[in-house]
């Protein structure tokens, strides 16, 4: 294990350095991305005002506010560029080079991205969560913070990230069929965003649809961790959803391995 870690440590470092270089650009990017949250916030505020101010589908306005911004933070934590990186390598053929290196393909990516994330998350996550907690306390008039929920949330995020990472690796192989990666990824992000509850809380969907969406892997990328943080899930439910996350993480891990093997075979048939 320690030896393994030693192999991958440089990748974490490389990812961190990369991020530091683009720090300023990254801040602009976050500021641009967060605009959407404010738009949602104002729309929901209008909705609650027009609806008389009571709870809707189990959400009060303060809860909705926390939901919107926490969803943003969660999607940052869970986010992965793997589909783009893999797609790019498939397209220009450098993926064949990966065969030559004596390290696991997926693991290399995973650790590089983790390095990247460790830095962004440390900078972003801590202050944002603190601000969010202060806002939540101010909005509801009492302290809502629950350390156990935070811990379970983080666990759920890690699982969500793993699901997203392996799913993205799988999706990256789409590049064998679609050459326009930017378009393909945009399509994926829109669909995943909707299914994960980023556009609208799944509780607002028609009940039948909600049930189906909750079973799909994408709820794990946003809705599940956020609901856990907000203490919306009871004991049995909580275990069920965490279990579902583990299941999907394992499933996509297996699928990515399978696709990788198919890819290797294909490359060796072509003669690399």
């Amino acid at each position: 294990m320690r030896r393994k870690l030693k192999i991958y440590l440089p990748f974490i470092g490389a990812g961190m350095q990369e991020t530091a270089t683009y720090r300023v650009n990254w801040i602009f990017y976050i500021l641009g991305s967060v605009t959407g949250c404010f738009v949602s916030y104002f729309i929901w505020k209008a909705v609650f005002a027009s609806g008389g101010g009571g709870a809707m589908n189990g959400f009060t306005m303060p809860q909705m506010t926390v939901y919107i911004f926490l969803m943003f933070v969660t999607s940052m934590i869970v986010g992965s560029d793997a589909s783009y990186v893999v797609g790019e390598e498939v397209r220009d053929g450098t993926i064949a080079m990966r065969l030559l290196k004596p390290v696991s393909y997926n693991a290399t990516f995973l650790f590089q991205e983790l390095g990247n994330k460790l830095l962004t998350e440390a900078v972003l996550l801590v202050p944002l969560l603190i601000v969010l907690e202060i806002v939540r306390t101010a909005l509801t008039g009492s302290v809502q913070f629950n350390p156990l929920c935070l811990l379970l949330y983080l666990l759920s995020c890690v699982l969500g990230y793993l699901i997203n990472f392996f799913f993205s690796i799988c999706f990256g192989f789409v590049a064998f069929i679609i050459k326009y990666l930017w378009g393909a990824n945009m399509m994926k992000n829109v669909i995943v965003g909707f299914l994960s509850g980023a556009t609208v809380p799944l509780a607002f969907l028609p009940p039948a649809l909600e049930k189906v969406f909750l079973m799909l892997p994408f709820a794990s990328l946003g809705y599940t961790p956020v609901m856990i943080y907000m203490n919306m899930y009871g004991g049995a439910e909580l275990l069920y959803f965490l279990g579902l996350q583990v299941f999907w993480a394992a499933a996509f891990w297996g699928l990515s391995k399978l696709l990788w093997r198919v890819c290797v075979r294909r490359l060796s048939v072509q003669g690399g």
Partner: protein
Amino acid sequence: MKQIKRLFRMHRIFVVQELKRMTEYKGDFIVGVVGFLLAQVANLLFLWIIFTQVPDLMGWSMNEVVFIYGFSLIPKGLDHLLFDNLWNIGFFIVRKGDFDKYLTRPVDTLFHVMVEKLQIDAFGELLTGIALVCVTLPQLAISWSVLKVALALLVIPFCTLIYTGIKTITAAIAFWVKRSGNIIYMFYMVHDFAKYPVTIYNNAVRFVITYIIPFAFTAYFPAVYILRDENPLFCIGLTVLISAAVMALGIFVWHRGISAYESAGS
């Protein structure tokens, strides 16, 4: 006049080429258009879900909200279709020193950059926008007049220029800092506010999107004139003025930027 004709002939070569490519790579074309279409569908689902909860949004009916949303997509789509290359200025062209080639040509650099690319993906937004406007219009009680039809059509290119102007200003920052793609993105994303009736926002947001980053003029103000006959002088007149001002500022910043351009390498 001869100049303009010449520039359009140039533009046509690029357009024809892009359309040829489109038929050659049908898959890519479909993926791009469907991608942007789906993004709109997701937002419309959101609106639909909202209107299952409440009958109206602070006095705006669903049809009105969807009309404003649809209207906003038309100038956005046009700008996206025609002037998408400005993003590349902010992200790559200046940083890699590829801007050199524009400066060795006897054509205005801004124009040259713009005509070079046609972004077919934009049809995803453009078609959704037109469809939404067409679907909601008959269901809205609008008092039509010849003047209104004329103004409604006339204002669209000016709405488009607000997008283009803001993109030009922010893209030109790259001449000083090398890479401004994310700055374009930061300002550009403010347009999200403009897709919905601005009365749902607080005063600060309203002030910003009206007078600082004037995206409210790309959809809400023209739409509110069409829907509710609100002051045309403000809604249409100011749209025209502001779009001219934004574009003029864009051209000014762009040309100042060119003298600061340092190319790449030694």
